[in-house]
Every structure is written in structure tokens, then in C-alpha cells.
């Protein structure tokens, strides 16, 4: 039982780390704003799949790491991810039963308040992007959801 728990932790940690690396890998200039929010959708998946263990606390700590990584205000992503995890946990039973395309829509809708709060915090600091392209990751994340879902489910089943 205990070793199984460790395996699960490893799966969650490993995929989150992979998502984090995907967030940082350099893209050409035009593609930069369209980068899907890999980390957010990976987090949504794990919260839906395993809400007893991956919850708001984990999301908050993850957010703190991202804050340091990006050099943003300490607590900015922590707040965003905590909010995201809260929404996902609130609707996790419903989301599990959705067909995959509806799940993608759910993930996109869950991203909206998360990105709105990030935009708000950036705005307070006078750093708002002043461009509608800011919302582009919502679209690309929705498109990527089926792939992420399949990959992560395979990882989860394998462990």
C-alpha cells in the first residue's frame, strides 16, 4: 500500500516537472503567446483524478515554485493555482463523467478565472500585457487537453 502511494507521488511529481519544463522551453517569437499552459492543465488532471491527495495545498506550493522560476511577485501563481485547484476539486466528480471534449471545455473554463486573477495582479503592478493574445493559451490548452488526458491517464494506469 505504502509503496503504491510512493509510486503515485512519483507519477504526479514527474509529470508536473515535465509540464514545468515544457513551460520554459524556448519557442519562436510568434509562438510564444500561444504556448498552452501545460502546468495548469496537468494540475487540473491530477486534481480531478486524485483529489484526496493533490489538492489546494500542493497547488499552492507548486505556484510558489513557479513564482520563483518566473521571477513574478511571490504568491502570484500560488494564488492562481490554488484557485484553479479549488475549481477543479469543486467539480471533480462531474468532470470525471464528462466526455473528453466536454472535459476540454471544462478545463478551458477553469483556466479563465485563473488567468483573470493573474492578469489582475500583473495589472496592479503596471505590467498588464495590453493584448488580447494574453488569452490565447486558453484556446491552445483546450486543444491540447485530449492529448494531455490520454498521456496522463496512461501514466496513472501504469503506476
Amino acid at each position: 500500500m505504502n509503496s503504491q502511494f510512493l509510486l503515485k507521488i512519483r507519477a504526479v511529481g514527474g509529470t508536473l516537472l515535465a509540464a514545468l519544463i515544457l513551460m520554459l522551453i524556448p519557442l519562436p517569437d510568434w509562438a510564444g503567446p500561444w504556448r498552452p499552459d501545460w502546468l495548469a492543465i496537468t494540475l487540473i488532471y491530477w486534481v480531478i483524478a486524485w483529489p484526496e491527495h493533490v489538492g489546494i495545498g500542493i497547488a499552492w506550493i507548486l505556484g510558489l515554485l513557479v513564482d520563483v522560476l518566473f521571477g513574478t511577485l511571490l504568491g502570484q501563481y500560488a494564488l492562481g493555482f490554488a484557485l484553479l485547484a479549488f475549481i477543479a476539486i469543486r467539480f471533480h466528480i462531474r468532470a470525471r463523467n464528462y466526455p473528453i471534449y466536454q472535459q476540454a471545455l471544462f478545463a478551458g473554463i477553469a483556466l479563465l478565472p485563473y488567468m483573470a486573477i493573474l492578469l489582475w495582479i500583473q495589472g496592479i503592478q503596471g505590467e498588464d500585457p495590453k493584448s488580447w493574445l494574453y488569452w490565447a493559451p486558453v484556446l491552445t490548452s483546450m486543444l491540447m487537453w485530449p492529448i494531455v488526458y490520454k498521456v496522463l491517464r496512461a501514466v496513472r494506469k501504469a503506476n
Partner: protein
Amino acid sequence: MLSVGMMITDYHYNYLGFLRSGISVVVYPVKYLASLPSNIYQASTEALSSRNKLLNENARLRADQILLGLQLQKLAVLEQENARLRELFSSAKQLEEEQVLIAELLSIDLDPYRHRIVLNKGTQDGVYEGQPLLGAKGIIGQIDKAGLVSSIAILVTDPNHALLGVIARSGQRSLVVGTGSNDKLELRHLVNETDMQIGDLITTSGLDGLYPPNYPVAEIVSIQQIAGEAFVRVEAKPLTDLNTVRETLLLRNSEGQFPKTAENTTETR
């Protein structure tokens, strides 16, 4: 959720610096891993480039070095002459000796809307917040957040960055503000009568307390008079190509540090 709110307010008073530098050590491997693919790509293209090409490059670099050596000789003479003349005028102002530290860029993307870069040197190498950052041809930015082993720098093109520059030819001062576009800076509050031309060099003035004086920054590329506006719209292009820069120089004054960070002075916008 409450604690998150606390974090944000806390940050404004800068109590959390130690926490940030602690976590930055933990996340450094992630940064390193993320930069690996493009590093490998670069290394392999370098390894596979033909002998001929390398020979050519070698010859070109050697020619460059001779040229630079020549210029350096001239500079040494000029420096002596300058010192002598200043002595004649018994002027207190002197050319300062500066030390540099070479830092390499980690090839990772942060937020596409903020012009920040990640360097592979941190406080343990003597990097500090507010330290000026130079490219091959001039100022490119300054250190924003210094971690233990890596640091984040803000580029001059970041919309939140401003410095007080001076047009080298005429001595006219102007605020040089980032636009968020990689090859464009904006000169603020210049009127039509100002003595300026396309191609004029803009250097740091040293009056903003951010950067040491007389380092080149940018070159004026367009001057536009817009009807009904009090000021002329002047755009400049940074001398260093910020897209391709890989090695940077961190400047250190012989007496210690250049004060302040860019964030404190951008209120003027």
C-alpha cells in the same frame, strides 16, 4: 487562501528575499533541464559545422582582433591624454575602472509579455540586484532578481524599464523607455526643436543612478512629428540584438555597487 493574500502584501516590504533565494536553488535544476534541448542542438550544430567554415571564422576573428587591438591602442593614448587634460583643469571627475563578470544566458522563455532573461550567475558569484548588464555593443538591461546560483535580468525593452539617456552628439537628455517590442525603444518628451537626427547614438547619462555614464544603448531609427501632439515620437533600436545575445557582461564598479533597481524609477511613466 488567506496566507496567499499575506504573501502578496508581505512582498511589498521585501521580507521574503531569503525565501525566494532559497527556493531559487531548488528550481535551478528545472531551469537547467529546460535549457538542455536547445543547448544540445547548438552544441551539435557547432560540432558538425565543416572545417572550412571554422577556418573562415577563425580568419575573420583574427582580423577582428587585430582591428580591436588597434582601436584599443588608440583608446589607451586617448585615455592618457584625457587624464592629463583633466589634471590641467584639476577636475575631480575621473574615468572609473570597472570590472566585469561574464554570464551566459540560459535558453528558456519566461512570460512572453515581460522581457526578462535568466543568467547562469547568482549572488555566490557576486551578482547583486540592480547590477548593469552589457551585451557586445552596449547596455542591455540590469539584474532584477538575484538568486544564489542564477538570476533574472530585466531588459531595456521591457515596458516597465526606463533609463535616462543622452544623445551623444548634442548632449540632449531624454527618458528611454522600453516598448515591449524586441528591437524598439521610445524616447520620451522630446520637442521638434531638439537637435537630433536619425542614426544618432544614445548613451547612458549616469544621472539616473541606475547605470554608469557613457555606455552606448541605442540608435535613433525614426523621428515622427504627429499633428496635435506636444512631443515628437522618437524611436530607437538597441545596439545589441536582444534576440540572439548569448553571453553578457555584468559590470561592477571598483568602489562597489551601482545603487537602486529599475523598478523604483519607473513610476515616471
